[in-house]
């Protein structure tokens, strides 16, 4: 046994904190080692000294002061708000948590159909929405919204500032973002941008390949204005546009949609 490393063991041994095996091994060593025996005696003495650290006898005045101060602080503490008291009275914490869960589940259940089928937000079928959008766009300018086999365009609200249009033809696929009033800089911010490492033309080519047509880009539309809307040709896509109160912010949600769930 290494005497130099015994100090910590002896410290534990003094308080009976060693395992039976360690204690017996150390006891055997102590029988033969004078230095370790002296060290163990020192630990025993310091432990005995530590035992003198006993509290004084607190008098009645000490405890009277403690109780008086506690009760005064309790009395001085401001009462909880009336609403909190009422809710605490009517509902415990568990009841409150249960009620919150019920409300959440009810809200989730009520919103679930709308989240699953975006067209219910407007109360129209996607076709009706697309038709309405197409009419509105034809009245202003630019191409109309055409129902694409790969992409469905549902606009909850359209604005004259920016029109995002998806079109499909036998010869080519075009996805054009055309701004009528906004400046070119602002327009580029509003258009969905592909990752920087993917070139616009490569994206357009992929879209065209998905649609099974020749990969051509409309000449009038700069490459930077081409939006990325790639999707498998077999799966129909549901696209929801939400125009926020800020005319510069539009939320576009593109999600795969099961064919049987899309009303024709």
């Amino acid at each position: 046994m290494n005497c130099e490393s015994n100090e910590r063991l002896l410290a534990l041994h003094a308080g009976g904190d060693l395992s039976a095996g360690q204690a017996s091994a150390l006891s055997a060593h102590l029988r033969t080692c004078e230095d370790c025996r002296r060290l163990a005696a020192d630990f025993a003495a310091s432990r005995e000294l530590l035992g003198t650290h006993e509290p004084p006898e607190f008098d009645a005045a000490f405890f009277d002061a403690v109780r008086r101060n506690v009760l005064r602080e309790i009395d001085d503490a401001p009462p909880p708000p009336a609403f909190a008291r009422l809710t605490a009275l009517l509902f415990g914490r568990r009841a409150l948590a249960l009620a919150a869960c019920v409300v959440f589940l009810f809200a989730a259940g009520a919103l679930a159909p709308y989240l699953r089928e975006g067209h219910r937000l407007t109360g129209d079928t996607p076709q009706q929405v697309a038709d309405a959008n197409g009419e509105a766009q034809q009245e202003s300018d630019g191409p109309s919204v055409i129902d694409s086999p790969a992409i469905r365009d549902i606009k909850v609200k359209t604005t004259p500032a920016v029109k995002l249009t998806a079109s499909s033809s036998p010869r080519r696929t075009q996805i054009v973002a055309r701004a009528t009033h906004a400046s070119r800089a602002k327009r580029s911010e509003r258009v969905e941008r592909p990752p920087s490492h993917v070139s616009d033309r490569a994206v357009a080519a992929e879209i065209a390949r998905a649609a099974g047509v020749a990969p051509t880009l409309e000449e009038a539309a700069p490459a930077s204005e081409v939006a990325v809307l790639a999707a498998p040709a077999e799966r129909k896509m549901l696209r929801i546009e939400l125009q926020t109160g800020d005319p510069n912010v539009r939320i576009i949600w593109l999600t795969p949609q099961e064919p049987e769930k899309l009303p024709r």
Partner: protein
Amino acid sequence: MTENRPTGEAASTDAAAHVDALSALVARARTGDRAAFEQLMVCTQHKVAATAWRLLGNREDARDAAQETFLRAYKYLKSFKTGQDFHGWLYRITVNVCRDMMRARSASPAGSAAREQRGGEFEAATPWSHAEGGDAERAALLAQQRTIVRRALAALPEKERTAVVLRDLEGLATEEVARLMNTRPATVRSQISTARVKLKVFCEQILREKRPGGSGL
């Protein structure tokens, strides 16, 4: 606290009666009965104050800790589960309050120094009930030893100090200390070992002083 201690079955009967009485007081205090809470304080104040004093080392801090302990107990009394050990629950609050105070004290060195000085003066003037024995010299020696132990404990880091006080002075098992300190028993053993080595170094100073004269421990 000076009454004769019953033994055997009588002791267990008394303990059960005490627990029942305490449970009844807790139930009444939970409904806002002030008198019941005051009675609860009377029943537990000695233990709370003694534990606080052992951990903090002076009477003034012990009083502050006792007050804070009872305030927290009152605040969280509604969360106390019926059938739970009230003494254990209160003991845990006491240890937590004292640890908070130790941390706050070590965080402000100026306050620590002032308290140390004030505490030292206060404790020097405090009569010790079981330090008499009629022998003035022995009483003086005991007072000196206590002062050194108190300073030695005060010099320990908060965790080591808590561990050694709870294990060696409060007599808790290592596992119980670990549970109170939210740590592992192995960590507590390490802290206790380190603390005992440090305390020994402090105490050796006294031993060296007393051995030549033959009036050592």
